[in-house]
């Protein structure tokens, strides 16, 4: 595996605020790497330093083997970019934008094929301003794929999209990755990071507070797994005390819930086995796994805000 992106000790400040502080990470070939965190955590600044749009104050940045500040032309020829705040002229038509942008690259992909692949064929003659949010983002993905890049940057790709459009975009991103391309994305939707990314870096106040695969992050920081069910009769004291080593039990009327440590492989089995042993009938059994959202809350101590 080759590192496509290497960042070491990156720091960038604007006047008195430090946007990115000592950030280091690597992105391996053909993985989907996500940077998550609330607005203002430093995700966009980091990605813009990688794209060569901003000059880092300190630290080492290497993308596809070059320094973005030194060799922007090489970088822009070999990477695809979708920016958070960017646009096309309102009255430009979809096909015109693709045709124009493909004239920028020495070996541009066939834009007619991209149009079909991204489901924009019907919108071929539609002006940019008349596209829906999802269609605009699909067009931006098409523009990002035009250079037939090895590496694609996607900054807040699905922000403001409805759930259906978001799922369409996720499928597209997976499809692009399956062709061996590397994707570096930012998002502030934890669900998106969890479903899409092979590895995730959680940023807060310009620093990486945790970095790993979503499953591993959940295992390490997600806290307790929870099982809950309903019972018809009050639980016997004997059952309650034998549950102690397995997890913490709370009873609210008929509803019983038990919290155990994440990563205990036999947690669900232990609870169900104990219920069977005591011959307790239960209904509406549910298990709740912690999510990346819980990890985020635990690590940063605050809610994600849109």
């Amino acid at each position, binding site marked *: 595996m080759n590192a496509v992106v290497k960042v070491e000790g990156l720091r960038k400040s604007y006047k008195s605020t430090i946007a990115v502080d000592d950030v280091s990470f690597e992105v391996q070939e053909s993985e989907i790497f996500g940077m998550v965190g609330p607005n203002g955590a430093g995700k966009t600044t980091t990605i813009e330093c990688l*794209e060569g*749009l901003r000059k880092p104050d300190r630290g080492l940045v290497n993308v596809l083997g070059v320094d973005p500040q030194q060799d922007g*032309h090489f970088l*822009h*020829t070999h990477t695809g*970019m979708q*920016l958070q*705040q*960017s*646009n*096309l*002229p309102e*009255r*430009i038509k979809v096909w*015109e934008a693709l*045709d*124009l*942008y493909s*004239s*920028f*690259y*020495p070996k541009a992909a066939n834009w007619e094929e991209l149009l079909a692949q991204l489901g924009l064929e019907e919108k071929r003659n539609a*002006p940019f301003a008349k596209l829906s949010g999802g269609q605009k983002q699909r067009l931006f993905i098409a*523009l990002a794929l035009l250079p037939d890049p090895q590496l694609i940057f996607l900054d807040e790709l699905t922000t403001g999209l409805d759930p259906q459009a978001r799922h369409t975009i996720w499928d597209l991103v997976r499809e692009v990755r399956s062709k061996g391309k590397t994707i570096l994305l930012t998002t502030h939707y934890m669900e998106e990071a969890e479903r899409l990314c092979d590895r995730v870096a959680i940023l807060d106040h310009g620093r990486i507070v945790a970095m790993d695969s979503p499953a591993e992050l959940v295992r390490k920081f997600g806290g307790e797994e929870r099982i809950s069910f309903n019972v018809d009769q009050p639980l016997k004291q004997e059952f309650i005390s034998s549950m102690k080593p397995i997890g913490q039990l709370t009873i609210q009327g008929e509803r019983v819930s038990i919290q155990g440590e994440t990563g205990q492989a036999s947690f669900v089995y232990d609870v169900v086995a104990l219920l069977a042993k005591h011959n307790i009938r239960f209904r509406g059994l549910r298990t709740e796994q912690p999510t990346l959202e819980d990890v985020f809350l635990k690590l940063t101590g605050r809610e994600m805000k849109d």
Partner: protein
Amino acid sequence: MKSLLKMTWIETKLFLREPVGAFFTLIFPLMMLFLFGSIYGNVPTQYFNGRGTVDISVPAYTAMIIATTSLVGLTITMAAYREKGVLRRLRTTPVSPLVVLVAQVIVLFIMTTIGMLLLVVAGKLVYGMRFDGNALSVVVGFILCCISFFALGFVLAGIMPTARTAQVVGMVILYPMLFLSGAGFPRELLPEAIVKISAFLPLTYVVTLLRGLWIGDPWSQHMTEVVVLAGIVVVGVVIAVKTFRWE
């Protein structure tokens, strides 16, 4: 080069799709010409040194087109491209975003030229417009005027924070200037005091130069205009480069 051609072609289409811009560059000056032509005809009069209303209006309306395309068209497009991230998106491609600036200038120059040609053709065919100048001199003067006003347009786009303010400020500068400089209607009709004010307006020099060259004045008679307009080019380009922002 391929990119510049494509960009120029797309910017041409975008210009024509923007009804307001196309109207004020191509249609409105013609409407003015027909309006005042139908009122006053093109009979020679002593007011205009033995020339008719249409004879002196065609170069003046040409000045109007130059001012409109630069101070409204160019300014708003550039400020909007910057504000909306169009320039930003271009910065992530191997092509220099300068391409879009050059394409913009080419398109506006072509449209301004078409606007002038429409006036000339209409003036000639409908009103038998007289032309005593040297065509080459007029072309050179026209190019100088265009460049100096495009420079002003870039300055304005660079200084204005948003497309909205660029539009408002552009209009506020443009409209009084159109009337006071003699581009909208002949300066001969303005009172003495206002004519004095007009010496401070850049457009006045465009009107004077174009009207002069139109009736065959030698260049030596218009050195003031040439110096002022060339000065605007130099100062304008310096300020435009300093104030220019990609985002």
